[in-house]
């Protein structure tokens, strides 16, 4: 149902109806923002990524294949943009500096200590693992959807996700989170 509506909105966008794109932004800015936020743990970076994702989505709208879910396609762009963003940061050898400098604007909704601990634990995962945890646990996507988004075989998704959980479990236990 939702997918048909999304496809319909895409069609309307391609016909020049910008309001339809506005509706897509309304629907998906929050999940995209949260994906980027979990990946970078920085609100400003997440805003920048979200903005770029929607601009790229708009520009590439005519390449969207309606046989796929729109949000999976959008997430694909969001994941690529987040990874590229991280790589750019790493290239400039800045990411780790800012990561541990305490200067970043961390998100503190809910239990701030818990959120911070989980953010830090996520950051201890390598990006390949982190994105899997985010897509599976925070975005609640299936193996198949994740496989499409990351261009991986479903079995690879499973195998990496389970390994990522093992590492994350260890990190969180070290921080005294999951065995509280």
């Amino acid at each position, binding site marked *: 149902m939702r997918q048909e509506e999304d496809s319909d909105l895409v069609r309307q966008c391609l016909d020049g109806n910008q309001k339809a794109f506005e509706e897509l932004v309304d629907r998906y800015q929050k999940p995209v923002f949260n994906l980027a936020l979990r990946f970078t743990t920085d609100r*400003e970076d*997440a*805003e920048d990524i979200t903005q770029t994702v929607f601009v790229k989505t708009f520009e590439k709208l005519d390449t969207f294949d309606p046989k796929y879910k729109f949000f999976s396609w959008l997430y694909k762009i969001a994941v690529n943009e987040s990874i590229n963003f991280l790589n750019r940061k790493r290239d400039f050898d800045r990411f780790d500096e800012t990561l541990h400098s305490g200067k970043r604007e961390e998100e503190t909704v809910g239990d701030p200590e818990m959120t911070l601990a989980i953010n830090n634990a996520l950051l201890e995962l390598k990006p390949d693992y982190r994105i899997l945890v985010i897509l599976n646990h925070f975005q609640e996507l299936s193996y198949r959807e994740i496989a499409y988004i990351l261009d991986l075989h479903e079995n690879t998704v499973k195998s990496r996700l389970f390994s990522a959980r093992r590492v994350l479990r260890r990190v969180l236990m070290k921080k005294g989170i999951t065995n509280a």
Partner: protein
Amino acid sequence: MLDKRTYDLLNQEMDGTNSPRDSKRVREILERNKAAREVYAELKKLSATLRNVPKVDPPRSLKLRILNSLPRPSAATPSFWDRLSDFVRIPVLRTAYTFVGGAVAGIVLFLAFSGTPPDSSGLAGTIGHSAEVSARVDLPEVSGSIRGQVVDGTIQVQGSLQSGREFTLRVLFPPADARFVRSTADQPSTLEVSPGQVLLAARNNLTTTLSFVSDHQTPTMTVQILVDGTTRFEQRLVFEPERQTDQSH
């Protein structure tokens, strides 16, 4: 220590993707294997912990930012000029256009010569009339973002810029309207301050916040990026500190 097959089965069980046969097998394993029970319990705790992390609402200004940064549509709909051209071709309206056009031209000329000449905003124009404004920098040599905001009466110009070469971030402002207070730059850079101008020369990437104080109600600043002494990027930041802009509805 669990073998990989058992660990995978436990994960799949938690995800609800096991076949009925594998689920039965998991139940049997859990009955007789204490280590498996512990791992399974930990996996469930992990899942619950992550599930409890709340989703964060993006700022309400984000939608506006996104929509403002979309490229202009190149749709098949007729452009303004096409429509105007079609409209003008209607014979009975030509006389009316002559009068209306004359009146408009008169008003434009009057405004042009009667008031203060508008400030030239340079390459990219004004980007906002709110407490928070931002723009992307997408040059071949420098990329990133510029953000301006008013926090507790302090104007902050933040730059997060990546480059593989030397460049200069320059902020221009009317000296009577604002005063530079400090800079935070966590990379090697050279700061040069003079009335109405702050120059920050960076070797490659630059993350900085430049703070200013102003009594002016609508302070205007111009942010420039110079590469090899040439202005490659220019953006005006217009703030209205007292008004909270929210156009997300």
